[in-house]
């Protein structure tokens, strides 16, 4: 393979991995606090729609981003209310959110824009533009390192850089701060947190809120960074793949980065090689499109080993009698 092709595939890996990474870190915060969140998908979708819609109407991608985060936070609040306050089943609440987002986004898109369930294409300030890092152009002629800097490292939207920064930040918050200690404790042994005089409900809501913000970023990036507008079901299962990556990463931030890059690479390869022939037989495009999902299953089934989820995950906290 040519060096440039490799760089292009890797570049596309980074772009495709980003929504996964943001959603994966979102799930990490929530699940580390003991709230399973199968609704990552729905939250991303809602954020993608509302960010694109607001950006299209106002022409400001930043307002769009805020709206996207708002939409995701609202769904997070519903999930928190159902599973923390009312101690409902977290899976059911999550599934409900996915259905709600799936239907509502298309319905509202059709109602507001009448373009068949999509938002108008975003242009100019309605999109996150690629940032060209300093000296990228000048250095691009330097052998090897130049193209890497120009093609791979430079030229992404700001959300991509934010996403990468979120990895060390998440790690630092979880393992070096009081907040992180309590958050992890509440997902492992909420009764220990409760008897230590810290509010279990408060900690879990905080975690769910962070999850909402990160899902909002992921969705907004999808519609205003990666693509130029919202189309129906544009998350295409990314929320679930993020969950798979989370399990693959065993709920650890750095592992999550590598897991998401791997899943991003699978998608990039599938996109790049749409018309692949093996021994003269052309592989159907659908197979290539399905490949990342098939490999997700294979990786989860075969390579994860023993993943131990947070011990109190999925269980509403009730003081024992």
């Amino acid at each position, binding site marked *: 393979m040519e060096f440039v092709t490799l760089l292009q595939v890797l570049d596309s890996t980074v772009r495709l991995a980003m929504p996964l990474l943001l959603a994966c870190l979102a799930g990490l915060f929530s699940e580390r606090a003991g709230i399973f969140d199968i609704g990552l998908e729905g939250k991303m979708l809602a954020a993608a729609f509302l960010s694109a819609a607001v950006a299209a109407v106002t022409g400001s991608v930043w307002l769009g981003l805020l709206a996207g985060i708002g939409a995701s936070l609202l769904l997070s609040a519903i999930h928190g209310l159902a599973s923390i306050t009312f101690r409902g089943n977290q899976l059911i609440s999550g599934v409900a959110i996915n259905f709600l987002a799936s239907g509502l986004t298309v319905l509202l898109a059709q109602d507001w824009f009448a373009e068949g369930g999509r938002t108008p294409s975003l242009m100019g300030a309605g999109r996150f533009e690629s940032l060209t890092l300093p000296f990228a152009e000048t250095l691009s002629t330097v052998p090897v390192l130049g193209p890497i800097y120009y093609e791979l490292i430079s030229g992404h939207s700001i959300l991509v850089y934010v996403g990468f920064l979120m990895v060390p930040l998440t790690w630092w918050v979880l393992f070096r701060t009081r907040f992180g200690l309590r958050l992890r404790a509440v997902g492992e042994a909420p009764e220990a947190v409760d008897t230590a005089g810290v509010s279990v409900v408060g900690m879990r809501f905080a975690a769910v809120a962070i999850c909402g913000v990160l899902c909002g970023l992921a969705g907004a990036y999808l519609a205003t960074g990666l693509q130029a507008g919202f189309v129906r079901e544009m998350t295409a299962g990314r929320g679930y793949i993020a969950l798979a990556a989370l399990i693959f990463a065993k709920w650890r931030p750095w592992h999550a980065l590598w897991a998401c890059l791997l899943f991003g690479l699978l998608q990039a390869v599938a996109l790049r090689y749409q018309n692949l022939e093996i021994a003269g037989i052309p592989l159907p495009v659908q197979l290539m499109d399905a490949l990342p999902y098939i490999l997700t299953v294979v990786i989860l089934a075969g390579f994860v080993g023993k993943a131990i989820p947070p011990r109190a995950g999925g269980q509403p906290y009730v003081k*024992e009698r």
Partner: protein
Amino acid sequence: MSDIPAIELKGISKAFGPVQANRDISIRVMPGTIHGIIGENGAGKSTLMSILYGFYKADAGEIHVNGTRRDITDSQAAIAAGIGMVFQHFKLVQNFTVLENIILGAEDGPLLRPSLARARGVLKSLAEEYELSVDPDELVENLSVGHQQRVEILKALYRQADILILDEPTGVLTPAEADHLFRILDNLRREGKTILLITHKLREIMEITDTVSVMRRGQMTATVRTADTSPEELAELMVGRKVLLRVDKAPATPGRVLLEVENLRHVDAHGVERLKGVSLQLRAGEILGLAGVAGNGQSELLEVLGGYAAAKGAVRLNGQALPLAGPGSDAGARRAAGLGHVPEDRQTEGLIMPYTAWENTVFGYHRDPRYQRGLLMDNAAIRAEAADKMARYDVRPPDPDLAARNFSGGNQQKIVLAREIERDPEVLLIGQPTRGVDIGAIEFIHKEIVRLRDRGKAILLVSVELDEIFALSDRIAVIFDGQIMGERDPARTNQTELGLLMAGMTEMPDGPLVEAVDAQMAAKAAREAEHHG
């Protein structure tokens, strides 16, 4: 010593729905003393202490700490008032280090590093002061139960608790660990700390407390100085009538071997080998007591013998080999072969809680022809028989139509016993016969077990209560880490010797006993954690 009580409760009441758990309770505990609270299961001890720690809110009453009225609405308020609690089920984060568990909720600031550094220093001085040493960087899941309990005590002391509540602290400890705990408590008392010790074990009360309060059915029936009372008197106060603390039995006359267990091996779902070649012989007309700290394979042994866990090795009943896996190895086949079983956990294994008492009296035997009427079950016959059994086993209330969950622990156990004993098994397996059972019922259950023995049956008694093992057994085997450490004659052994065996040691160590026991327990915990990690 001042005459202001460290803790004073005035007229505390608490109801859970229709159940009045605490009724108008008042006590005074002086500083620098150990005050015992004793009572049967369900007497309301734990509820009272949970109220004091702010885990529940009292419906009525006042709490005074060091002479000032305190409104303890949550655990935070209790901690602020200088109260610490060591729960029966530890409140620790298993995959956190000791240090992280200590500072959780009591951090100095938003960043962990300074908090951890300070905690490390405090921990070191506390360890020296009170014989409370634990490795601060070890994960809690790798610690023995005894050490986990120390972490709980350290947690309270780190929060500068002057008043320490311990809820049934010795239930999970070996005798040596329990002795060490009492030394720690003694040290704490000497430093002026006030300790509330909740227990149902009379011996512990007599050994360590200065004063003792007795609770019965949600009420405080008496508060006395320990020096002025006796176990017999306390038992009477707990139950409300005279009870026999000792079991009356004639010497056993063991006959032929009824049950033979040979080199039994069992691996659990986590891949941990729980039975590592257990061999036992059980003779007609004797009670073999299997002593051991919970979690050393005795539960698995009962499961294997009872027919709901597969194993390798050999088990012979009356000379007949029993299949240990595959067809014919289920619980029904075991019962049909003459092996009765009173499981350790009567609420999940012994009874179906929502079902009525009469239904519960035939489970496992419900295919017996005498309960059939054509294709259907002869419910009238079963119900009549159940009423008769319940009368003979003194089950209260004697109502066969009541659901099992509506009976008290003791009466539930009597239902299970009636079902198993009335089938006249050759061999009866009994696990924790009196766990969660009130003293009055204990007396009855013990008598029934001895009567069965005197009818020439063989009984395997598994109990974590050493007192019970001593009271009933004709022969004592000790299990540790899936292996039988040895057998002893109850008349020629004592708590200390059995305590050593329960910690996996066959002779007195050269160095200090506590350290040797600690080392054994830590090694065992580490082995098990390996499989779970």
